[in-house]
Structure formats: structure tokens, C-alpha cells
């Protein structure tokens, strides 16, 4: 029994290690990728003993800056709630990773270890629930700041989050209908089937419209450009205003962790998770032709790396979208969420149902 606990702790360590490191690297990648896209070089001046290594010390410099700033609490505000809000933001961003499967079941030393931290039978609902809880951190931050403009910013943010949660949930319904189960593990395994013999039945093949809707709604949920009206990087006053030092760092890192969690969920639902086409747990498997057997550990390693690479690709893609598209105005954003995304998501469900019924 203790061995199970240790194995789960190991899995948590691996996932946390990946997520937190990639979140820090994402803050560097944001500056470098935007620079490369804009024909510039980006931040490359932070050095330790003369070594610059492409500016990779900048996240460390940012962290040191945030840790050494004054930790200010508004004197008239609610100090407990003010401190609670960034913790909530980090918690709800991180806990989503508990249900994302990052590999096939590992058969090692006579044990079957599913490479997923918690195999809950509510699956995707867990993600939607905790994504929805992220809304609390926005509201509590604005409310406890005792600043009218922060409150307005948090109301803006909360309205945006609620509007796009609907589209998020409805597009997930389409995926659940296509694969017949709400558990993420079953959905990822279901993407190993082949349609017409050669096309892997990935989520994007089954639900192309659902993918676009989900990706857009998820970017709006994480308040990422083009939907970043709540705070928009200090161009407009928002709920971050009264936060300094590491509390702001918690919000900021929470945003990057949400980027990775969106990337993880999108790959798990729509891009096959850890599946590599034509690679099954018996080795390279071309349906109808031949099978090349490969050692089990190698297959699992390849699949875990594939998951990591897909997550990194979607992080890259979200950064690309962030630095390409202009920001939505608030009324455009609300109209887009309610009048365009929700009807499209409903149409998606109806069409998926019809196709499922006919075929």
C-alpha cells in the first residue's frame, strides 16, 4: 500500500516538474518567440558570471525581483481574502493536471502503473469544474482590493469567464459523444482506432468544429490574448492592481500554468494525447500490413515524449496567436461568446448526434 503512495508521489513529481519548469520557460519563450516573430532578438542581457545562454536567466531574474518586493496588503481591505486569491489561482490552475493522462499503462516489475495521477470516473467534468473555480480568484482579487477600478476589472474578467465556460462545456459534450465516455483515459485510448484504415481517429478528425470552439473558448477562459481584456498587461486597470511581489507572481505564473493546462487538455481530447499514429503497445503496427515489435519501455517512453512534444507545440501555438491577433473589445467579446460560440457549439452537438445516429 505504501508503494502505491510512493508511485503516486513519483507521478506527481514528474508532472509538477514538467509543468512548473515549462511555465518558467514559457515566460522566457514568450519574450523570445515574440521577438523572433517580429524580426527582433528579445531579452538576452541577464547574465551570470558572463554567461548569457540566450537570456534564460531572465525568468530567474524575474523571480528574484518578485520575491524581493514589498508584500503589501490593502489596509482597508480584507487581508485574508486578498492573500487567498493568488493561492486559489495557482491551485485551480495546477490541479487540472491530475486527470490528464500522459502515457499508456506502464507494465514494470509485475505492476500495472497507469500514467495518470488520478483516474477519476468524472474525467472531464473535473477539468471543467476546476476551470470554473478559477473564476473565484478573479472575483476575490478584485473585491478584496478595496479599489473601485480593480472591482470593475474583476467584474469584466468574471463576465468573460462565465460567458466562455458555456462554449467550453458544450464543445466537450461533442467529444464525449464521439468517444462514448467521459473519462479522459478512455477518450485517449479511443483515439487509437483507425478510420478508413489509415486515418487515426483523433479528436480533430472526429470533431473539427469542436476543436476550434474548444480552443477558442479555452483561450478565453485563461484570459489570454485576444481575450485578455480583464488586465491586458497593464494597458487597462484590472484586478491585478493591488498585488505586488510574489502574489502577482502567483497570478502571472498561474496564467502560464493555465496555458500549459489548456495545451494538455487540447492534446488529450483532440490530438490523441499520448498516441503516436501507427505505434501501439505491440510496436509499430500498420493496420492490415505488418507489425514490428518494440520493447515495452521504449514504446511508453516514446508515447510520453510525444505527449510532451504535443503540449509544447500547443503552447507555441498559443503564443503565436497571442502575438498575432488584436484584442477584442468588451462588447465584441461578449457578443462573440454568447451569440456566436454557443449556437455553434449547439449545432456541433446536433450534427454529431445525427452522424452518430446515422452511422
Amino acid at each position, binding site marked *: 500500500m505504501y508503494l502505491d503512495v510512493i508511485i503516486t508521489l513519483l507521478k506527481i513529481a514528474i508532472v509538477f516538474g514538467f509543468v512548473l519548469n515549462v511555465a518558467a520557460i514559457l515566460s522566457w519563450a514568450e519574450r523570445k*518567440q515574440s*521577438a*523572433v*516573430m*517580429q*524580426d*527582433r*532578438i528579445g531579452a538576452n542581457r541577464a547574465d551570470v558570471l558572463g554567461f548569457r545562454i540566450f537570456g534564460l536567466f531572465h525568468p530567474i531574474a524575474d523571480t528574484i525581483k518578485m520575491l524581493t518586493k514589498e508584500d503589501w496588503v490593502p489596509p482597508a481591505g480584507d487581508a485574508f481574502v486578498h492573500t487567498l486569491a493568488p493561492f486559489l489561482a495557482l491551485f485551480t490552475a495546477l490541479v487540472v493536471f491530475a486527470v490528464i493522462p500522459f502515457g499508456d499503462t506502464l507494465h514494470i516489475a509485475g505492476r500495472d502503473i497507469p500514467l495518470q495521477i488520478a483516474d477519476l470516473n468524472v474525467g472531464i467534468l473535473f477539468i471543467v469544474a476546476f476551470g470554473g473555480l478559477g473564476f473565484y480568484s478573479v472575483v476575490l482579487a478584485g473585491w478584496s482590493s478595496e479599489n473601485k477600478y480593480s472591482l470593475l476589472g474583476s467584474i469584466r474578467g468574471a463576465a468573460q469567464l462565465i460567458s466562455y465556460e458555456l462554449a467550453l462545456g458544450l464543445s466537450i459534450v461533442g467529444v464525449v459523444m464521439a468517444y462514448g465516455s467521459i473519462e479522459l483515459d478512455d477518450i485517449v485510448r479511443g483515439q487509437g482506432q483507425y478510420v478508413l484504415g489509415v486515418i487515426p481517429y483523433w479528436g480533430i478528425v472526429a470533431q473539427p468544429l469542436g476543436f*476550434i470552439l474548444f480552443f477558442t473558448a479555452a483561450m478565453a477562459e485563461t484570459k489570454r490574448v485576444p481575450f485578455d481584456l480583464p488586465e491586458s498587461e497593464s494597458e487597462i486597470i484590472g484586478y491585478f492592481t493591488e498585488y505586488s511581489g510574489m502574489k502577482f507572481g502567483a497570478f502571472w505564473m498561474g496564467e502560464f500554468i493555465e496555458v500549459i493546462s489548456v495545451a494538455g487538455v487540447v492534446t488529450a481530447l483532440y490530438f490523441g494525447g499520448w498516441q503516436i499514429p501507427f505505434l501501439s503497445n505491440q510496436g509499430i503496427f500498420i493496420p492490415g500490413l505488418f507489425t514490428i515489435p518494440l520493447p515495452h519501455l521504449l514504446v511508453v517512453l516514446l508515447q510520453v515524449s510525444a505527449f510532451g512534444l504535443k503540449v509544447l507545440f500547443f503552447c507555441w501555438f498559443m503564443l*503565436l*496567436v497571442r*502575438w*498575432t*491577433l488584436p484584442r477584442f473589445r468588451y462588447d465584441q467579446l461578449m457578443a462573440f461568446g454568447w451569440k456566436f460560440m454557443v449556437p455553434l457549439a449547439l449545432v456541433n452537438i446536433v450534427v454529431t448526434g445525427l452522424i452518430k445516429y446515422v452511422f
Partner: protein
Amino acid sequence: MKIVGHNLTTKESFYFFEIAKGLWITSRHFIYNMYFHIAHLLGKYPEVPAAVTVQYPEEKIPLSKRWRGRHRINARPDGSPRCVACMLCETVCPVQCIHIVAGEHPDPAIEKYPVSFEIDVTRCCWCGMCEEACPVDALYMDTGKTPEPGFSREDLLYRKEQLVKELPLPGCQRSLNAPGQGPMEANPLGL
């Protein structure tokens, strides 16, 4: 000039294809620049720039011939400064940043010399009027250097001892007498 626009076509009004086109443009820039960054790391294609950034202070953008930088006081062939403390530059300076204290020069052909010549860089607006006003080929702004950041007002007050030691930037030198030498044969900038 009449600006002609058009209403959105049906395909454009979906915005999706337009967004995809925009994403493709930035992806193209990304792929192109990333390719050349990696090529630079491997030592290939050094002449193709992967970014338009000029890494100051290691690289500098080339300056024009008439660029006005830090001041210098030109020197006679015997090494003494050419300035005769006529106060023309101090008078014409629009922000009154030059302060000269004159003294008597033993040579009656050169009547005065500056005992102290100070330029307050915190006030200088780099207009070049002092350079134009000097009648004896003494004050020039052709060193091609920018004022360095200083940590005190003393650092940003340029005195005569410092100003006589500056040298012109080759290619920007505008004085008709080279520093420490007599008249030059040709117009230095070819104007």
C-alpha cells in the same frame, strides 16, 4: 486622396480564414528567423541577418558625417588648445550650458585663453550652434561619442582637461585643422 475600401466578402466575414492567413504570416517570419538563428549558431550564413536588432553597445549603427556627439577642443600644432575665450559659443548657446573663465595669454597675437571651460551636459541640447559659432576652429562635436551615463553631477560636467583630450571620429572629422597639426589640404568631409 480617396481611400477605397470594400465591405467584407462572405468568406472574409467569417474571420476564420483571415485569422489563419495572419497566423501564417507570423509563422513564416518565425520559421525564417529561427532557421537563420540556428544557422548562425552553426556558423553558416553569417551575412544574412536573422533580426534587425543592433546589439548596442557591442554593435553601433553607422553615424552620419555631420552627427553631433560629445564636444572636443581642437589643439594647435604645439598642443595648446585653439580656444581664445571669445565667448561666442557661450553667448550663442540656447540653454547656457557653456561656462568660460578667460585669462591673459602671454603671446600678444593670441590675446586670451580659457582658464576654465566647462560644458554642463545635463543642460546641453546638442544643437551644434556652439560648433557653428566658433571662429577659430576650436570647438567641434565630431567625436562620434554619446555622453556616458553618470552617477553624479560631477560626472556630467565636462571640463577643459577632458575636452582637449578627445579625438575626432575618423570619417566625422569636420575641423579644417587636424588636432595638433596645421591646416589640411582638402575639406575633410568633401563638402
